[in-house]
């Protein structure tokens, strides 16, 4: 710690380390890992349930839900990926394949 630091800063840095070190070891503990995995699962379940309710409501009104848009985006992405793959293959063949008229 540089000696020319003002007293208030030295105090803040010391307090931060005093609190930070136990916090850092806590976030490496099994309890913390359990907490995070449980929270993640609960959040995803709650999100899924809320989405299900809103989807049914929107579908009753014949409106698309967020999940419909998402599915459509995924389908479009799959199609675009396939197109990119094909154009890559064509470009590769252009670079490495036999050229027309070269007699081989």
């Amino acid at each position, binding site marked *: 710690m540089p000696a020319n630091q003002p007293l208030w800063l030295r105090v803040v840095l010391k307090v*931060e380390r005093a609190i930070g070190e136990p916090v850092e070891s806590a976030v490496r503990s099994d309890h913390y890992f359990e907490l995070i995995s449980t929270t993640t699962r609960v959040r995803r379940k709650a999100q899924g349930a809320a989405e299900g309710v809103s989807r049914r409501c929107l579908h009753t009104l014949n409106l698309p839900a967020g999940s419909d848009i998402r599915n459509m985006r995924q389908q479009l*992405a799959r199609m675009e990926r396939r197109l990119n793959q094909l154009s890559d293959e064509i470009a590769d063949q252009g670079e490495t394949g036999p050229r027309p008229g070269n007699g081989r």
Partner: protein
Amino acid sequence: MNPKMPSTLNPADVLQRINRDLERSVLRARNGVRYVRGTHRPSLGTTPKDVVWRSGKAELWRYKGGDRRYRPPVVIVHSLVSRSYILDLRPGNSTVEYLTAAGLDVFMLDWGVPDELDADNDLERYVDWYLPRALAAARRVSGSEEVTLAGYCLGGVLAALYAAGHDDARVRNLILMATPFDFSQMGAMVGLLREGRLTPEEMIDETGNVPADALYSGFYMLAPTTEVAQKATLLENLWNDEFVEGFQAMATWSRDHVPFPGAAFRQLVELLVRQNILMTGSIPLGTRQVDLVNAQGNILNAMAERDNVVPPAAVEPLMQLVGDPARREELRLPGGHVTFGTGRSAVKHTMPNLTAWIIDHSDPPS
């Protein structure tokens, strides 16, 4: 009388100190307002460059500015989880700028920001598709038969797999910077995944990728209270324009993560984290088995001694696993994970050491 106390109080000194404190208070107020408003943000990644190859989101940049005296060119392969401008953060504090100024021909392979289209990108896609094409472009543009391949963080894993998995790799030198090999030493970053408490599917969102926020949270939780110390240090140095600029640049980068492509993430978790497969020295890639000992070129394993993202213990085993044992060298640097790109320690140690090693292993100017 206390010997440390001045015997007399010099009025000129007192006046000078009051003046200095007043000036600093004015500068603190000005910079504080700018910081809160988010104006006067520093420009990042400003070394001039040309895009020489592009495929999907991936781009290969060639930096301008130097006289390119040495061969082969240096191609930096960036990580999949962060933005590449960390290696070119600010003028005067940039590894890319330093290497370029030393006469090296520097390229950067940047992966861009993945979205739904990249969700299927797996390790094979990076190692067997992007890398061969990008390196062919680097060779073509530079007119060199070989390259010096430098991978940073996970980019180092990709670079090592490429150098080991391609007979025609033509890698003169392979530099691995903070490259994780022993994932059992990666600590909290991978703890949740290693022990199966979370599955990859639980982290992948509707785009098919791991969202950038999840990655940021992972890094943030390595040292959750450090931000308090950083903000307090900023407050003390708020009068110093250069300090504020550097702080803003680092703060911007450390929050600026990119989504991790889902397919590569699944492989990373299953092979690298759970099976810790790199420690066996061999990894399945596509239809073949890649033996890391086959990696071509002179190997430099560079690690940062205070790296809490990829600790030295996770990097050290590389010295027993990658490439020809007679051509392996180790470089230990003071500093943390970002010392490969920026910071006082980078300017003092990383940049000169890396540059000297590369020049020593390059062709001299003709």
